[in-house]
């Protein structure tokens, strides 16, 4: 089993989409649970990619390919996650704020949340505050997740929170924020309910926000 897990991690790192799908099926056939495959096969690979990217030793196209590889493996696992005994942990609406087109981090958070049993509605990129409000109205999520990767677009996170407050429904949803330039201090200053530095922390944060 360990051998297969290592191969799966390597497939994610190298961006080998087909191989990853096959290895995932094999692991399931051998009795590994979806959660084990994510924790011990996919995540280690993706973490490595993230670290390499930050060091400047891997670049965006490679990262995108790795993300696609992980998504493919997740698609294989998804039916198993749903039919398994994992009850819906909660509903999350996520999006990248207005003026910002980055989505890798957001997509990773979406994958991790879905893997953890959350129902996720992804509004995409360049989402204006009004659209987040509409989504809260339509889907009544427990959590609203905001992503921004530019210092100039971070202020639009505050606009979303202000829009919720002005509408009189700030208490109806928990807001969590993330993205490379975002800090815990900034999150506090705009009145967000939480900040997560990476996708794994985002899942933990989502769980604790639901519990509170």
């Amino acid at each position, binding site marked *: 089993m360990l051998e297969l897990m290592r191969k799966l991690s390597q497939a994610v790192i190298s961006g080998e989409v087909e191989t990853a799908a096959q290895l995932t099926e094999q692991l399931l056939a051998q009795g590994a649970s979806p959660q084990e495959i994510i924790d011990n096969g996919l995540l280690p690979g993706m973490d490595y990619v993230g670290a390499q990217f930050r060091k400047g030793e891997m670049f965006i196209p490679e990262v995108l390919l790795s993300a696609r590889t992980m998504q493919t493996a997740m698609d294989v696992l998804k039916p198993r996650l749903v039919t398994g005994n994992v009850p819906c942990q909660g509903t999350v609406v996520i999006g990248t704020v*207005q*003026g910002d087109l980055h989505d890798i981090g957001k997509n990773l958070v979406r994958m991790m949340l879905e893997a953890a049993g959350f129902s996720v509605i992804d509004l995409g990129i360049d989402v*204006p*505050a*009004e659209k987040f*409000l509409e989504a809260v*109205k339509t889907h009544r999520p427990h959590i609203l997740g905001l992503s921004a990767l530019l210092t*100039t*677009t971070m*202020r*639009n*996170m*505050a*606009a*979303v*929170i*202000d*829009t919720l*407050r*002005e*509408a*009189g*429904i700030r208490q*109806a949803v928990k807001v969590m924020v993330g993205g490379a330039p975002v800090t815990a201090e900034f999150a*506090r*200053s*705009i*009145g967000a309910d939480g900040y997560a530095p990476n996708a794994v922390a985002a899942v933990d944060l989502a769980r604790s926000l639901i519990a509170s």
Partner: protein
Amino acid sequence: MGRLVLGIDTGGTFTDAVLLDLENHRVVRSTKALTTHDDLARGIASAVARLGVHPGQAEAAVISTTLATNAVVERLTRPVALALIGYDPELLDQFELNRHIFATVAAHFLGGHDAYGRPRPGFNPGEIAAWAKRCWPDVEAFAVSAYFSPLNSRCEKEAAEAIRRQVPAPVVLGSEMSTSLGAITRATTASLNASLLPIALQFMEAVSRVISPLARGALLCCRGDGTLMRFPTAVARPIETVASGPAASAVGATFLAGRTTALVVDAGGTSSDIALVVDGSPRISQQGAEVGGYPTAVPAVAVRTLGLGGDSRVQLAGPAASAGEPLLIGPERVTPLAKLASEHQTVAAQLHAIGRRPLAPEDAVLLDYWYLVRYPQSETETLTAPERELLDALAAGPLNLPALLERLGVPHLRLVPWQRLVRRGMVARAGFTPTDAMHATGEYEPWDREASLNACRALGSLLGRPPDEVPRLVFEVAARTLARAIVGYLAPRPDGTPGGPASGWMVEGALRPGSANSWPLVPHLRLDVPIVAVGGAGPVLLSRVAEILHTECLVPPHHEVASAVGAAVAKPVARSEARVYPAGPTGGFLVSVDETHSTFYDEETALAHARDALARHVRDLALREGLPASGDVRLSLFPEGGGYRVVAVLEAGQQTAEVV
């Protein structure tokens, strides 16, 4: 005699008037009259007449009034039409927010602004004016509230102008009432204010006639946050007087105790109110005042109310004990056993017998009495058959719970239909209360002390303690419960705002040494300000609380007129706010002070400009409101969302207490 100020407070039952000597720090004279809820000015005139103040004797006169709250609760407010601009009716429906909006008639219009203060499409002032003209025969005032108007009030101002061109009615704007975000509370604040205008005018005129001959100078009115405004301002902004009673009471109690900073605890019969006063100003709540069930954006004193008072029901905690206390006190209020026994010999005799029997834990209900207050007084008060049966069972005299259940032939209280009857005041309960404990110790014994002593014997038997320890135990548990509530009121969150965690071994170990099993760690909690105890049960219950929190307990004289005193010593204040917020999704900052908007590239420059412009504006405002404009302006900065609120406060006047 020093500087004299006339202070008046219209409370729930009594209207108090005091003549206060500010310099020598004393109450010269005080009087009470019954509050005349249907016409508050009459009660005020009575109280003031009894005070015997000579014309021109007082330097100023201040009133704290429940006018606004009364009018809303008694539904005496005038009909008002509310224009909601840029709101989303679907969202209001979906989140059930419509019940928070106050209006006789309300209509939705397109327009308003976004989170950057930019106008949204569809705004049509002509449409609003036409609507206003149609409403005019049925209403007396209008309120206009637009989305994000604190950032940009243009929509509201244009709508108001259009309305005024059509009808000769007062129009109140949301942005004039509050600069906080929260479109629902802002709209309700504006419409409530509009609906109070004619009532406020009438009231202030009537009160003016009575008191202006007596005061040489200003006539002032108390706000819900403990500051004062001149009468003309109060006539324009009557909603701000909401919740002024608790504010005045906290400020007055502190003053009477000879301090400027204290934790005031008002312990009455049913509940205790906790409020912190620092440098003569009470702590303000993060949420606005609620009036008649409607949330407003009016700043109000942060008061924590605990359901524990002199007549709170004392029960054995039993196995469900929380915080490890052997007794549970409150939140229900019951008639003290001493009082019931003094009115019914049978009860006194029963208590005598119960006090001398050996008792098992189930026998605690022998002290739980039920009695008849009255039968229905009119045909509209209908009863179900089981309810009538309950009244008849109690007709011959009070019964304790076992006797009542036996008489009715039911096995459990849950099968007895008492709730409606108690709510309507036809049936009442009696039980052991802190008042009974005070009878037992002899500190306060207007009723049957023997009955209280017998009840102590019974409780002692149930708790396994000597009867003479029971009163002390009751006071001890009451004190710890109050101390816990005080800690809860003051406990900070990491960012310094109140509402932090107030339980756990550190708190329990500090309130009751040794209880937390934390040795060798010994928690110790100290309250750095004195406790000022007011209210009927204040002195008895709070002295022990002060010991637990290692501070002193002050019981001021004249505390029954603390609210009127508080009104007299409160500070007249002019306040203004400005906003600094992102100018758009890509950069820049907008500074909005009064009617002017300026754009800046850099946040620091924007803030500096805001502070400067606002300080000048608040002085202009003070002059317009008839207050002296010299004096220091205090500026504070509150981060809100993506920007800041800048608040300038100008204290005008020297009505502050000196520390003794």
